[in-house]
Every structure is written in C-alpha cells, then in structure tokens.
C-alpha cells in the first residue's frame, strides 16, 4: 500500500506544479493596468491606454482594434460584461470614480439614468451623426453609434405552408386567427422584450394593460430572453419550435436566407427603435483618448463593420451595409418612439404593472 500512495503523491505534486504554471497570476498584466500608468498624466500626450466599458454583446473585430491603435497611438482595452442595464447601473454607481475612459452601449431606454447621475462629460465628435438619432436631453454628452429596431418577425415559410396570411400590425396579434402563435422575451428581463413593450405603450398609451391582457388571452407566450424565444420557440429558429411569430430585430431576416431568399420577415409597422450611444466618462483618466475612440466608432471602418459584428445598423448614412441586409432586412421608416425621460419616469411602475398582467 505504500508505493502507490507515494506515486500518487508525486503525481499530485507534479500536476500541481504544472497547473501553477497555468495560473493567471504570473501572466504579466501589470503592463495593461491603466489605473496606475495613466494617472501620472504622461499617458495623454504619448498615447497610452484607453479603456472602453461596454456590454457583453459588443464586438469589435481585432483588425479594427489594431487600426485604431495604429492611427491614434492609443492602446484600446475593452471591458465588456453584463447586459445594457447592468452597464447603465455600473456607470451610474461609479459616476465619481469611473471604471473606464469611454462607454459604449447605453441605449435610449437606459440613457437618462447615467446622464442624471452625471456619469458623462461633454463631447464634440469630429463627425456629426444624423440629427434623427440625437437625444433631446443629453445630446451633448451621448453620441449615437448604431441603431437596431425591435420588430415582430414572422416565419413566412410557415405561413405559406399553412396557407394563412401573416399578421401585419400589433393589433393583428390579438386576432384569434393568430392564437398561440406569438412568443416574446419578457420586458423585465430582456432588452428587446422591453423595446417591444415600449412599442405597445407608444401605440396604446395608458390602455396598454388591456392590449397585453388580450395578447395573453390570445395565447402569447412570454419567455426570459431573446435566445429562448428565438431558439426555443420560434419555428424558424428551432427544430422543436412551434410558434411562427417572434419578437426579434429588423435585421433578423438577413440570417434566415436559404437559396437566395429569406424565410422570415420583420413586420415594419411594429418596430421600436433602439439607438446605442457612446460617451466620454466624467473624470476619465484619458479623456482625449476616449474622444478619439468615439471619433473612430463614427468612422467608416467601424460603421461599415457594425452589421457583421453586432447585427445592428450604422447611424452614418454613407456606411456600407452587407448585400443580404440591403436585400432582406429593410429598416422601418417610422418606428414607435417613447422618450428616455418618459421611460425613466415610468419604468418601475410599468414593469410592476406588466409583471402583474402576465402573472395573472
């Protein structure tokens, strides 16, 4: 019994040593620590790091990061974690000691909170995005970068096969002809879910609870997140899906293209537009770098890459959009609107009421 235990002990020791080599502790992250290296003021003139705080859906291709670093001499570090709400909360809570230099991914549904907390500094980008995306309040601090509209999507292939006409408007969704066919992510747990809810608020005003009651009575299914709805229940997104109507994005039909045609469509009269903004954080270590980053986000390279990397439309009119998008994902011309101030003032009450309606 002695020998095997010695051998086991040796193996363990060797394995531990090998694993210790794997530790993160020794991987020299000191060089990337912006908090210590930029506070001496030298960073601003000689480039130095720029830290971007954003949400988990943010993706910037490596090539573009390298291009930014080569053009400006700054070093870009991206901190992406949590959803848009988490990002807004983080920025609001750390307004006096920011976690980064710049932030991207605050959308019009969450904009007023960090603005009220004074998280953003004024910024004047070199390029001017179209005025239609600008915020009425805080437009001097938050710069629009992209937009994506949340629209009801339908599985046109399913409707063709069943020989039923697909719905077109929000009102159609309560029609018994479409009973048990809709699935939507929840307003309380999902950003597109919230956007769809806001569309119904914009359409029905204070009568939205009645609409939602009808919607649920007509068999609408409410799930946690977009991925549950799209991949769990949507007929075009899941093998076992049973519902051909889903709340998704205006760009979604570009991802269901087979043999040169798309099998789904976004209902352009049901859309709520989400615009994502970027800004320089108040008290940032490297405000110049942050401003350079925002200019870069508005530049053609990033704007044209947005559809491919983040499934959103660029705000700059001259940016290139992929052929599939141009062909299969038309954008709504007149989406529903609710101002950030109104959202901010009513969100809690709306969500409480909404949760009550769907829990009944």
């Amino acid at each position, binding site marked *: 019994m002695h020998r095997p235990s010695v051998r086991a002990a040796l193996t363990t020791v060797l394995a531990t040593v090998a694993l210790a080599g*794997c530790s993160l502790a020794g*991987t020299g992250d000191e060089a990337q620590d912006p908090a210590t290296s930029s506070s001496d003021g030298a960073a601003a003139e000689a480039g130095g790091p720029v830290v971007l705080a954003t949400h988990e859906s943010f993706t910037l*291709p490596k090539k573009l990061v390298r291009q930014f670093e080569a053009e400006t001499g700054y070093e870009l570090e991206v901190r992406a*974690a949590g959803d848009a709400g988490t990002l807004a909360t983080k920025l609001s809570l*750390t307004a006096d000691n920011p976690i980064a230099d710049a932030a991207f991914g605050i959308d019009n549904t969450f904009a007023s909170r960090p603005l009220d907390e004074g998280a953003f500094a004024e910024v004047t980008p070199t390029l001017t995005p179209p005025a239609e995306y600008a915020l009425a309040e805080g437009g001097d601090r938050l710069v629009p970068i992209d937009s994506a509209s949340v629209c009801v999507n339908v599985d046109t292939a399913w409707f063709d096969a069943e020989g039923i006409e697909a719905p077109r408007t929000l009102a159609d969704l309560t029609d018994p002809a479409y009973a048990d066919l809709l699935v939507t992510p929840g307003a309380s747990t999902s950003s597109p879910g919230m956007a769809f809810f806001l569309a119904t608020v914009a359409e029905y005003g204070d009568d939205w609870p009645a609409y939602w009651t009808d919607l649920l009575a007509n068999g609408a299914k409410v799930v*946690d997140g977009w991925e549950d709805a799209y991949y769990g229940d949507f007929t075009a997104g899941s093998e076992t899906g049973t519902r051909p109507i889903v709340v998704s994005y205006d760009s979604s039909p570009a991802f269901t293209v087979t043999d040169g045609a798309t099998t789904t469509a976004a209902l352009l009269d049901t859309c709520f537009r989400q615009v994502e903004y970027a800004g320089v954080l108040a008290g940032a270590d490297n405000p110049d770098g942050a401003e350079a980053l925002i200019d870069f986000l508005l530049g053609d390279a990033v704007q044209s890459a947005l559809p*491919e*990397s983040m*499934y959103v439309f660029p705000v700059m009119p001259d940016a290139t959009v992929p052929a599939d998008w141009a062909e299969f994902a038309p954008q709504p011309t007149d989406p529903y609107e609710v101002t950030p101030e109104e959202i901010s003032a009513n969100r809690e009450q709306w969500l409480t009421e909404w949760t009550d309606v*769907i829990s009944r």
Partner: protein
Amino acid sequence: MRRLLALLALAAGPVLVLGVLFVLPVTGMVSEGFFVDGSFAPGAVLEVLARPRVHRVAWFTVWSSGAATLLAVVLGLPAAYVLHRLALPGRAAVRAALLVPFVLPTVVVGVAFRQLLGEGGPLGFLDLDGTPVAIICGLVFFNLAVVIRTVGVAWESLDPRPGQAAAALGASPSQVLRTVTLPALRPAIVGAATIVFLFCATAFGIVLTLGGVRYSTVETEIYLLTTTVFDLQAAAALSVLQIVVVVALLALAARLRATPDPTAHRTVTPVRAVRRGDAPAVVATLVVLVAMLLPILTLVLGSLTVGDGWGLANYRALTTTGDNQALLVPVTAALVTSLRTAVDATWMALLVGVSVALIVTRRSHSVAERRVRSTLDGFFMLPLGVSAVTLGFGFLITLDQPPLDLRDSPLLVPMAQALVALPLVVRTLAPVLGGIDDRQRQAAASLGASPLRTLVTVDLPVVWKPMLAASGFAFAASLGEFGATSFLARDDSPTLPVVIFRLIGHPGEMNYGMALAASVVLAAATTLVMLAVERLRVPGVGALA
C-alpha cells in the same frame, strides 16, 4: 482566554479576506439603498418590505427552493447509497459525470430543458414549460450532485455495525434505514441540504429561463431592481431580507448538525455486491440517472446536428470566432482561460478553506470559544446565500481605491469564484478534520512537535486526499461559475461559460451549434477533471493508503 485570543488571531487572515471580498462590497451596495442623497434614511427600505409583491417574491423563493431541496435529497439518497456503497461497474465514471450539470452554464441547460419540455419537445405533453415544476426540476438537475457527493462520502465511512445490531434485533431493512442509518447520516444530509437550499435560493438564470419571467425569486428581483429599475432602496431591502433569512437558516442548520456525528470515527466500509434487497435503490438511481441524462443528451445531439444532417462541423468551428465573428477569441482559447482561472480560484479557495476548516474543527475549551467557532463556520457559508448582483456591484463601488483597487485586477474573477467555492471546500474538509482524535495532536505535541509540525504530521496526512476531492469540487464550481464571472470577466479573456452565453445570444445557426458543442466540451473537461480526482480519492475520508 489566551486560547480564545489565539483562535481569533488565527481566524484573522480568512476573516480579513472575506471581510474585504464579501462584507465590504455587500455593505457598500446595501448602504447605497439606505443613504438617500447622503443622509441615512432607512424608512424607504423598511417601507419596501411591506410591499405585497416583496412578500410574494420571498414566499415563492422559499417554497420553490425548499421543494427543490427536498426533492434533491429524496432523489439523491438512493443514488448516494448505490454509487458509494455498492460494487457496481462504472461507479467512478458515473460519479464524475454527475457533476456535469453542476458546471453547465444555466443558459445552455435552460435551452436544453426547454427543448425537452417546450410545446414541440418530446416531453411537451407534460405541459410543464414555464411552470414552477419546470423551475424546480431545473434546480434539482443542477444540485443533485451536491447531495449525492456529500451524503455518499459520509455513507461510505458509516460504521455498518449499529445497523446490523438493529437488524439482529428485528428491524427490517427499511426500519434500519429509518431508525439507524438516516439519523446517523443526518449531519451530512443537513449539510448538503443547506448548500442546495442556498444554491436554489440564489439561482438566477434557471428561474428566468424555465419560469418564463412569470416567477420572480428574491435573486431575480434584486437583479431587476438594480439593473433595470435602478430602485436601489428596494434592492437593498431585498438583500437585507436575503441575508437575514440565510443567517437564520445557517443557525438552524448548525443546530441540526450538532448531534453526535457517528461518522466522526472514520471506518471504511468496503463496497459490497448488489443484493436483491438493493433493487429499489438501484432502480431509483437508474431513473434519476436517465432523467439527468436527457437534457445532456439533447445537448450532445444538438451539437452534432449540422444543417439537416449530422457532423462534427460545430466542434471544428471551436477554434474559430464563430459566424460573423461573434467572439473575440476562439472557444479553445476561452477553454484555456477557464482552466487557468479555475486553477487560481481553486488554490485560493483551498488556502482560505483549509484554514477555515482547521479553525472551526479544533476542539473548543470554553463556551465562548465554541460560539466563536460556530459563528465563523456560518460566516464562511454566507457567500453562497447572498445575491451575486449585490456582490458584483459592491465590488465596483468599494474596491475602487488604493490599496484595495481590485476592480481592474485579473485576479478579481478567480477571487469571486473562490468565494463561491469556499463553502464547498469547508464542508468537505470540516468533517474529516473534526474526525481526527484531538489526542493524536496532543500526543504529537507531547513528543515535542511544534504546532506547525503537528499540523504537518497529524492533520495533513489525513486530510490531503479529501483535500484533493475538495479541490476537484472547487475546480468544477469555478469552471461553471457564470453569475459573478459574466459580471467581472474582461472582454479579452472570457471564460468558457461567458463565451457560450455570447454564442447563444448571437444569431446564426453555426453560433448556436458551437454553443452546444462548447457546452459538451465544458462538460467533458469537467468529467475528466473529476475522474482524475476520483482516482486519487480514497473511499471515505481520513483513510490512509
């Protein structure tokens, strides 16, 4: 008195660690709610507790977690018996595989469950999708391994003779189980149930995914209030409520555990051949295993589906960044990050966990000393029961000034994971250390051994193999940790669960397939690690090879 002071000095290290990484952030975040515009205003917080919605949420949390815990214990006991006491072929592999659910990202399990239970799924006829039953099933799926492992190890080292004496006195096997075996296993069962309850009560993703947002628990409500509604008073109220309930529960558990522990005198009972009387337990275990396997099977099949046929394309794609560059780093790189992070989290959890286990198990010489020890014991369980959201935001607002400027540190993620793994380490080691006869230490000391030498010569030889088991557990917990990690992980070095979450959140058939393939890889990696640990693990604890 001197002993008490020495004890406090010894506890200072771990307490300081937990103070900085847990108490400080949570207090910081909770006080955001108590202070309105700089002045202390507890009224608003207390008012929140009177809301009917808060009562509803609290009640749902308690009953759903309670039901899930009960079910996990009931289903886990026969499996613990069969897998730890009977000589069945492939026991080791099954035991290792049982930990897989423990590390699977909730979002993936959610999708797998919904494919099974959803309207078009094979179990759709049960009509469970979006019901509390589905939530409870999901919670049981995640936590069954905790019961099987904790109770199984205790069962292995249970002296069979009291049961035989009872049988000779005329007790039928079921009477022996009820009157002798279960009471003897009570400390282990209570310990496991406590951990499971805490995991369930703070479960997040699974509640949202399977409950279809109709059901809120305290944890999901805190998340909603903090990130979406920004009602920090209400969030603080719920956090405080959560802490109070958790502390009460831990106190109750400590009381229930504090019976003479018959497993303290470690004996190793050899596994025995299966007999006819074992049939119900074996059948129950098989049913449980099949039920556990179904969602995993769904995942595996999904990962092998390419277009309308079968193939390995999803696995080959793991070295890429996905359709339309959904990822910054390929899945393989994320796996490496995951493993490295888990190594760090494991040594951190072990370092603190071993000291805590040593402190809480040394024999107390006075009532005050015993109180201090049992308070410490409960204190280190707290991180399991407190909202990850509160803790995560607390990190950001409290650990932002030198000398505690940790929020940019690459070690923050393993630190957070180590906090989650710590209770698992303590609960695994404490019974073993508690089982060492204090006289052995006294004998060593009387022969001239210094306290350190006593530790090395008496405690370490007994504990090093259980320590491996604990590290395996911690490693697995770290591999699968998502809540805190997704909050803190840096974009350039995401862990595998974070990457899986990202893949599944991006449109594109390949991304979905890759998410499933990556989950299978994560599961396989976990199984391999656990199998390796199993090989090093001695049956029972404290047995020297």
